[in-house]
């Protein structure tokens, strides 16, 4: 069985990216699900021969930054709640 290379080296219909954030000994997970044109907002997709490269865009880095900050805020708030 062979899968046509042209098929596999085109943009997928949906992309799910699981992020496991490591911070101060804690790990927090978050999933980003993208469909259709939304994928290209977060990744620039480049085909090079039989390879497909996914380059994160500035929007992706911004999204990571905001998720990271939200995670840190949640962890700090949870730690604060435990103080006497």
């Amino acid at each position, binding site marked *: *069985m*062979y*899968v046509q*290379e042209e*098929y*596999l*080296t085109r943009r*997928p*219909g*949906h*992309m*799910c*990216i*699981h*992020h*496991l*954030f*490591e*911070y101060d000994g804690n790990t927090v*997970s978050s*999933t980003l*699900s993208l*469909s259709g044109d939304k994928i290209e907002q977060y990744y620039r997709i480049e085909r090079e021969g*039989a*390879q*497909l*490269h*996914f380059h*994160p865009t500035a929007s992706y*880095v911004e999204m*990571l*930054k905001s998720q*990271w900050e939200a995670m840190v805020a949640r962890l700090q708030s949870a730690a604060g709640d435990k103080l006497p």
Partner: protein
Amino acid sequence: MADILIFSNGPAAPEIELPTRAYVAPDQLRRMAFKPAAFRRKIVEISPSLLLLWAGDYNYATVFAKRAKAFFDGVDVNADTISNFVRTYYRTSANNFWALIIPFSGDWLCTVGDVTHSQSAFAEEYWVAGTGTDLFRQIVGSLSPRADGAIAPHIDGLRLANDLLAYEINTAQPILSQFGGGYEVFYSDQHSFHRVDDIMHFFVLVRRTATTNFHLSHYSHATRQWYEQDRLYIASFATPVGTEQGLGFVALLSPVYLTTTRSLNRCMCRRNI
């Protein structure tokens, strides 16, 4: 949604290479009474308006799917015909077999075997069956609803599938609970059921190296899955990190009612993603 892995208590279960390349320690594998045996589709598409989902014994599921295919051929799908099907063939439940019969119309479904009805903030009302019920409920119960509040069932299904795959990679617990390997996701709109087709799953470890910089470590394999007619393909790709671990592969999963089922076929897949 449904997973794709079936298990066998046979003496010489073949080694299964999981699309995620999740690692199960050999001693854990040895202790398992049922071991990963093959990949199979567990969603049976009887028609665009009727889905069957099964868990448990594969041979029993094959008979179940063939009976349903024949029974509903040219027959209206409604409460009467579904009840008639269940009364005719599944009046008593079998060991190690569970099924959901889900018609498109109406807000009801029919169950075979001891199926759990539950709810969570993320999934609201849901049904789950099989050996992984407890773990599935635990994972679904830990998820929060999307913040945007928009109705997008395919996005929610993809998010859950991705979380379950990540859990498999990080803990192997789904495999030890006898499910996993990959997931099919279906959703319905106002007209019929639809497959969520052509999906890539990536897994990334994120560390912050400075106030403004992130260090992203991609796990060694990503997966891509798609349909061709009634067959599901799942490809496991080596990322640059995974290249040293060997080439990827493609699993081909046929519907259970087909007599010729090729469960795992390797193919040339010389590309890195």
